[in-house]
């Protein structure tokens, strides 16, 4: 298939130049100023519209925390028992009938890193899953792409500490202690595993141990002290690949963050400053951190921030000062790199997945919306409503 007459922003070297794209077997195979269609080759005319890679939501719960159902449809948080559950897999819970997927497509999102919520300290692993497509297998980009660890308020027991059992902590100290305990056990499990020794199967440690081999650990934290605790923990256990997710408090520890080596999936600023707790959730924050030389992806965060408003959210980050192209890169190429998926998604270059959005209007305008969307080279509907 040829997608022709694109005003292409490939999130690599091409910024608004006219290009044609050839798509074969779900991949982009050629990007060139003019491609002659082969006999019988399908042609879609982008007619000069802006074309970008599909967006990547790095902190999604789409398909797991479903639209509409307060209880039955919310599979994001395994509350009520143990708070250390790194062996749960978002993969096992994804409901493709969730209207949230349609909402995400309507906002330009083609890949969601979807998994557990933030009510557990270790809620499980996240799956890199395409937001559309006719086959399940075709939509799974990576079954388990990251472990999610939450040290913020959400993971603490709402009614205070439960000292006796330490099952669900009420304090930061308790939260970190439980997380470190899990990492210690996993580290030992990993050592024995690598040494070829025999040990009883421990599903939790087996899952968490992958962090030592480079599986991304996403620490969902907002306040400065929680970010510091996450960095301290990552150092103690020598985690080779970890990200601070949301991380509004980074603004209060810029130099410290820069030397840590942590990746940043900066929280969506939608909502702005409302009280002391949200004091750093400023629309200007992304631009300020960029000016400080901090690299980040922007976490979109469906369903807390509905996927249908993804490009609208980007407009607000741009209003806060971040350059237009940097806004778009923060949810495409930078997000892909942070997740380690850059060989498959994030730019529109030969060899990558054909996850492409042809925009009606400008994505960096409230009124812009996807007109044509391809996922794995297959055309999918990006209409918000289908009646």
């Amino acid at each position, binding site marked *: 298939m040829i997608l022709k007459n694109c005003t292409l922003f490939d999130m690599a070297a091409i910024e608004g130049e006219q290009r044609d794209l050839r798509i074969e077997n779900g991949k982009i195979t050629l990007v060139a100023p003019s491609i002659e269609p082969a006999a019988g080759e399908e042609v879609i005319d982008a007619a000069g519209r802006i074309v970008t890679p599909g967006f990547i939501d790095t902190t999604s719960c789409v398909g797991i925390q479903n*639209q*509409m*159902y*307060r209880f039955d449809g919310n599979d994001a948080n395994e509350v009520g028992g143990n708070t250390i559950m790194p062996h749960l897999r978002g993969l096992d819970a994804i409901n493709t009938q969730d*209207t*949230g997927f349609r*909402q995400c497509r309507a906002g330009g999102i083609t890949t969601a890193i979807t998994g557990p919520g933030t009510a557990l300290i270790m809620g499980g692993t996240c799956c890199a899953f395409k937001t559309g497509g006719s086959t399940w297998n075709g939509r799974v980009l990576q079954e388990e792409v990251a472990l999610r660890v939450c040290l913020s308020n959400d993971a603490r027991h709402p009614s205070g500490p439960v000292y006796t059992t330490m099952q669900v902590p009420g304090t930061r100290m308790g939260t970190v202690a439980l997380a470190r305990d899990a990492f210690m056990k996993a580290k030992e499990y990993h050592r024995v595993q690598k040494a070829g020794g025999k040990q009883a199967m421990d599903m939790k440690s087996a899952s968490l141990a992958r962090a030592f081999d480079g599986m991304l650990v996403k620490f969902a934290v907002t306040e400065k002290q929680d970010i510091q605790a996450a960095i301290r923990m990552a150092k103690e256990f020598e985690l080779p690949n970890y990200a601070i997710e949301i991380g509004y408090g980074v603004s209060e520890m810029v130099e410290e963050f820069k030397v840590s080596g942590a990746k940043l999936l900066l929280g969506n600023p*939608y*909502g*702005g*400053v*409302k*009280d*002391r707790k949200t004091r750093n959730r400023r629309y200007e924050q992304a631009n300020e951190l960029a000016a400080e030389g901090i690299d980040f992806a922007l976490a979109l965060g*469906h*369903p807390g921030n*509905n*996927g*249908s*408003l993804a490009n*609208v959210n980007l*407009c*607000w980050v741009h*209003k806060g000062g971040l350059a237009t192209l940097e806004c778009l890169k923060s949810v495409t190429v930078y997000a892909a790199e942070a997740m380690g998926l850059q060989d498959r998604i994030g730019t529109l270059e030969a060899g990558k997945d054909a996850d492409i959005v042809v925009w009606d209007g400008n994505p*960096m*305008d*409230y*009124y812009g*919306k996807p007109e044509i969307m391809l996922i794995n080279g297959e055309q999918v509907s990006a209409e*918000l*409503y289908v009646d």
Partner: protein
Amino acid sequence: MLLVKNCDLMNMAGIENEQYDVLMDGGKFVKVAKNIEAPEGCQVIDAAGRLVTPGLIETHCHLGMASESGSNTNERGNPNLPALRAIDALEFDALPIRQALQTGVTTICTGPGSANIIGGTFAALKTCWQNPEEQVMVEELAMKMAFGENPKLNYGRKGKTPATRMGCAATLREILFKTKSYHEKWLAHQEKLAKGEASTFSYDAPMHSLMRVFEGMICKIHCHEAADILAAIRIAKEFNLNYSIEHTTEGALILDELKAEGGKYIVGPTMGGASKAELRFKRYDTQGKMEKAGIRFAITTDSGVIPIEHILTQLCVLVKYGLSKKGALKGVTCDAAWAVGLDDRIGTIEEGKDADLVIWDVHPLETDGKAGVVVIGGKVRYEAEKEEA
């Protein structure tokens, strides 16, 4: 005295994008005409061709109700709480109220949440937080009521009534029956006193508050599903209540009924997803469909559900999905004022009304939409260029 010259005026009462001047004095609009000469001593602002509209009105929000020590929006113990008053809890200069002013919102109607069948009264405030003595417009504007999943969750899940929609409706009707009886006793008591006759009366604060709905106080009834909307209208008619339907989420499913009833409909918050079953038909094209059906309505953010600074973002999203631009502006100006019974004071730029207006640096329905100057009661309360200094 304040004169704003060279407005590209949308006064929301017939003047559309024409060059006009607007003169304000004593807190009111005193003249809306072309080429007004500035009286002596009058402050003059040159709108320089910028769009000028009435100040925006948020008909339903909870701004000023939450504080650092927690949210004060909902009591949890009793579904019938008409004696509660937002005015007693408001933080008049809360940060979101300041943000409202900066966004061009000049009046907010704020109050209790929807966890109770009857939650208490809403207040109407101007957003001029720097002058708290000028802020309170109406101490008790409306009685908040609610149907649907929120009261069901708050009570039903604890094994109390209401646990069902039938229970919600029956609870409200029973309360209204009892209060009507109380009201009649009160009126009889007043009559006797007026005639100089002896009379005693047994006061009950909740019923004394609620009985005002039989004297015209608006009932703001929170309804998402069509069943709730129709039940609310049915009961309002039974008791001859002045009512507005808040949220009206399934409005597009009952267009004929809503048009026939001609009630006050406040639609929103629309931008966002569906967290509960009764929001399953929340759609960005609802207001557009209601407009095409010829139904009059206001548009709400239900702040903080949608942060107040996104009042314009939501309007743009609604226009993106079918609402006309004029309809979007009506929903937060003249039709908003009508929906809360304050159209004698606000909602349009006409002589005699409160001098609340916005000079827009960028049109409110553009992505970069931005208020340049916000005037309340004929005084400048916010200037964008001064804030950015």
